[in-house]
């Protein structure tokens, strides 16, 4: 029996959030819901996410999840943001089901960032 609510992976990501911070970039998203606040900002190299940063106010699972998202999505096509789903994240971090509502807010924020980037591209093409 283990009463510790945090997996080793959560502890590791919470303790060393290497992707914490914000960047001066037009590609940003912010959501406040379910008692948490989460913001993502990205820079692109062509259509690829070059750097992804987060800011978060929430429980350790939220902070660890935001860091996990950044490690997974950097170097991936920006279009992946809009189809991001938290199933792998929940499993990888062993997030308790009771916290899935908060983790889904992160999914919303990642998708919002994807939508913002897509909109920027669309506007650029129209220009």
């Amino acid at each position, binding site marked *: 029996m283990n009463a510790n*609510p*945090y997996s080793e992976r959560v*502890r590791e990501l*919470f303790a060393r*959030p290497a992707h*914490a911070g*914000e960047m001066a970039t037009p590609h940003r998203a*912010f959501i*406040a819901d379910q*008692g*948490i*606040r*989460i*913001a993502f900002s990205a820079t692109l190299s062509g259509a690829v996410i070059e750097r992804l940063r987060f*800011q*978060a*106010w*929430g*429980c*350790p699972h939220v*902070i660890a999840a935001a860091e996990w998202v950044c490690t997974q999505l950097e170097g991936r096509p920006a279009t992946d943001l809009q189809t991001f789903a938290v199933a792998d994240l929940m499993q990888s971090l062993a997030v*308790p089901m*009771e*916290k899935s509502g908060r983790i889904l807010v992160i999914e919303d924020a990642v998708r919002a960032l994807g939508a913002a980037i897509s909109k920027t591209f669309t506007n650029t093409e129209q220009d």
Partner: protein
Amino acid sequence: MNPSQDIIYLDYAATTPVDPQVVHTMLQLQGAAGDFGNPSAMHSAGWRSRAHVDNAAQQLAELLGTDAERLIWTSGATESNNLAIIGTARHRQHHGRHLITMLTEHKAVTDVFRALQQQGFEVTWLRPERNGVLDIATLEAAIRADTQLVSIMHVNNETGVCQDIAALGACCHARGVRLHVDAAQSVGKLPLNLAELPIDLMSMTAHKLYGPKGIGALYIAKRPDLHLEPLLFGGGQQQRLRPGTLPVPLIAGFGHAAAIAAARMADDLAHLTRLRDRLWAGISDLPGVQLNSDPALSYPGLLNASVADIEGESLLLALEPLCVATGSACNAQNQEPSYVLRAQGLSDAAAQGAIRFSLGRPTTTAEVDCAINLYRQAVRTLRALAPDGAA
């Protein structure tokens, strides 16, 4: 007596390590070589065990300024609270079904009253002032002709705020109402003289005063109209109020812990006051930090501080290896901030970032200094992580 080498334990309000002298006392009573007899048995083995029980009752009675026969052994403060409150309510229900308690009581009291409400009893829930103290006028206004019991804790387990038990008891007795006090956080820590205090029933537990877990006691004043209905049945032990074979090693441990507490109380209080003041001086200059109890009105072993715009659960984890309690009950099942702090008028945000530091006899200056550094670092780190904007 330090709890462990790899943690900094500042959660003594939750529980304390058993004093090594108490461990020695209890170990001597274990096994075939110890006095293992049933203390109710009518033979020499039983009498030897009974002597340990009587000695422990005397030690506890001396700590509390009462007679040993006024004490009933229980499994802990939760059981004592249940026996005192339910036992009184049931015994007095033909005289009236109105009961009074505070919103800031421990769950071991509030949940008992909620259960009684479901059984048809009427409960008035009193709110403290912003400093956590109950105004006597608030209690006076709540007492009715059919009020049978008032239950108010001595030292609050979250904030350390002390209630004026003498004044509250006098108010109750002037109106013919019984007073129960949950003293789980104060027995062995603050002076309590039951010969002088107007208390009818008082709950206590050993594990908060460096005694073993699983043993507590209920004090029942000697008054002709004070009777309880038992919750358990099955034997004649303890005046039929709490039957069951007595756990002699635990009782002996409780007694020894009480004797040590009585001898050390003044030194303990001076030690804790010095460390509490040092802790607050070390964190009070952080922006947004506030104290949730007035030190002049509180037990010095406990400091409850809030910090603005910090999430309590993350703060708790960021403080590791510091073992403290969060003022927020934020967990997977419950995101509610502390009901105690909310009842004192704190906002959700302030209650959310509250931390309870509870210091103990083994706490060192070095541990307090380490706690200060960890707290300052954790607050800086979590603030740097947070985006602007309201949740």
